């Protein structure tokens, strides 16, 4: 509960604006109210802090990992499950809930300031890689900003990916880190050492640079087929597909273990009940086809997804836009290993479908360009539809129409 009249005013204004916004049908109404509330009281987040706070940040997996922590705790928690992960959305999530617990995903660039306001109990740091370079121009700068912010926290426990050198670098001066030794395929942003710019050498189970920057050795969690946290095996049977979701789950369950409020074993079993996260992974109907919608918005997330789709025989649609929310520069398509798809046919959607089709053709894949959704391929087979951010949103809305 807010502790100052000004914060209380901010909270009420936030809720009122969002209610009106929803009644007018202007979207889900989270960001605009948050903006008003923060205008009235810039310290609003601090005043809205519930007694237990978990933050989840990183380039990929934030929304899913946040959903997994919420599902695993099975408590009533405040969460920004619409993906509004900047201060406005976070303020709205906190103002709209009377729960003692908050599990929040936070945009990478906003993590330092949100951390300062909320003094979280636990922060989960998943990974850092290139994403929307036209806006956040350097991933190393984000690691640097994290490092400054996280070296200063004292009471916060941190759960972090030990196989991502940029994350490890960000925590160089942090204490109380529970390291997760989880499979991490994307290395292209950490081939040069963040400490000395030398070359990081990756071996089967470790990585190191000659300057002494190495993979942390005090590991809390391992995911090597089986999941082990603090020396205990946990059952991990997910309904969500892909190794990347097992990684998200391992980190979510480590956060739950560190938090200590619910049994990790029970939490782990609950994750099996999670079939869909914010419209992803679940089965939908899209233009008369039975489709699984997937979101992939940068090279790292596309890579892990393609890996999971190599042996998938379903019809594959890929959609790429270059709106502001996607990043206006689709150069990153050449950082995605589409060669993994071999010679399969891929239907290309989105305003940048020709950029995608050209990339696929050079990769040896067989693109089919869909200029008009009236001409989507007909057939009875199931479809896997992978879109980047705004394509995914369009597809999700289309599938939820009627």
């Amino acid at each position, binding site marked *: 509960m807010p502790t100052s009249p000004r914060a209380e005013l901010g909270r009420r204004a936030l809720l009122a604006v969002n209610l009106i916004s929803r009644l007018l049908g202007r979207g889900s109404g989270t960001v605009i109210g948050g903006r008003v509330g923060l205008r009235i009281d810039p310290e609003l987040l601090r005043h809205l802090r519930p007694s237990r706070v978990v933050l989840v940040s990183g380039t990929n997996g934030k929304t899913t990992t946040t959903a997994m922590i919420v599902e695993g705790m099975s408590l009533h928690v405040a969460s920004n499950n619409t993906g509004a992960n900047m201060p406005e959305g976070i303020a709205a999530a906190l103002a709209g809930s009377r729960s003692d617990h908050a599990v929040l995903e936070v945009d990478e660039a906003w993590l330092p300031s949100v951390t300062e306001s909320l003094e979280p109990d636990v922060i989960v740091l998943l990974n850092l890689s290139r994403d929307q370079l036209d806006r956040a121009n*350097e991933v190393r700068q984000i690691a640097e900003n994290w490092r400054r912010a996280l070296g200063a926290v004292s009471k916060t426990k941190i759960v972090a990916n030990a196989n991502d050198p940029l994350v490890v670098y960000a925590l160089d001066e942090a204490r109380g880190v529970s390291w997760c030794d989880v499979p991490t395929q994307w290395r*292209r942003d950490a081939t040069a050492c963040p400490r000395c710019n030398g070359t990081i050498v990756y071996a089967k189970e470790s990585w190191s640079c000659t300057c002494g920057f190495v993979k942390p050795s005090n590991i809390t969690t391992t995911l090597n087929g089986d999941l082990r946290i603090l020396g205990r095996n946990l059952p991990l049977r997910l309904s969500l597909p892909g190794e990347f979701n097992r990684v998200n789950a391992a980190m979510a369950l480590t956060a739950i273990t560190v938090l200590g409020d619910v049994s990790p074993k029970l939490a782990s079993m609950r994750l099996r009940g999670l079939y869909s996260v914010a419209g992803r992974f679940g089965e939908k109907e899209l233009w008369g086809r039975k489709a699984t919608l997937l979101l992939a918005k940068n090279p790292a997330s596309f890579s892990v997804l393609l890996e999971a789709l190599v042996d998938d025989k379903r019809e594959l649609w890929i959609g790429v836009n270059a709106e502001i929310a996607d990043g206006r520069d689709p*150069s990153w*398509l*050449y950082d995605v290993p589409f060669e993994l798809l071999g010679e399969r046919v891929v239907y290309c959607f989105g305003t940048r479908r020709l950029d995608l089709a050209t990339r696929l*053709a050079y*990769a040896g894949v067989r693109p089919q360009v869909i200029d008009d959704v009236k001409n989507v391929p007909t057939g009875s087979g199931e479809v896997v539809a992978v879109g980047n951010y705004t394509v995914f949103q369009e597809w999700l809305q289309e599938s939820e129409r009627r």
Partner: protein
Amino acid sequence: MRIAVVYPELLGTYGDGGNALVLQQRWKYRRHRATIIEVHLSDVIPAADIYLLGGGEDGPQRLAASTLRKRKFAKTINAGAHVLAVCAGLQILGESFAVEGDTQFEGLGLVDAVTTRGADRRVGNMALDISGKVLVGFENHGGVTALGSGVEPLGTILKGFGNDGVVDGFQTEQIWATYAHGPLLALNPWFADHILSTISGQDLDPLESIADDLYQRRLGALGL
């Protein structure tokens, strides 16, 4: 044909590897052989027909420049090889460049070009006129590059900023340099073929592909 991608771990921020792939594939479609060689920081510079230098973040750009100097890269180029340099790669080939703050770092000195920090970061679509043909791309950099007298720019700006809002990049008999970053050869198939034709000394048959449609679409999107 040997296509060398120089320091992809340092100069490969924006899908820069795409240019090597496009050159290789378009050369192969003409029934020739092409190999892509990745040159890493610890390698001596191998022999190649063309070296590709991509875009990079500030620290890595400095390291790439100092390592290329140590490895006498300029000598390799002066011996006759070609270079396609993009963004940070362009800046490295010049006399000097500034990345963080106003300190100037020594470049390779292959071309009389000096890059200083501009007031704003230039992010957006760009297009330039190269002897009557249009090259489309995307730029994302904070540099302003001044060319010495007698240095020929790659083209004149139609959209965007390039070196200084008037011209973009530079060219010599062996070097093409531009701020149009990332996989510019994927967007501009004619320019990819121009490079292949120049380094092989052969006239190439036209090659129709989806990339032509992409090029036309981008021209349309930029109102050109």
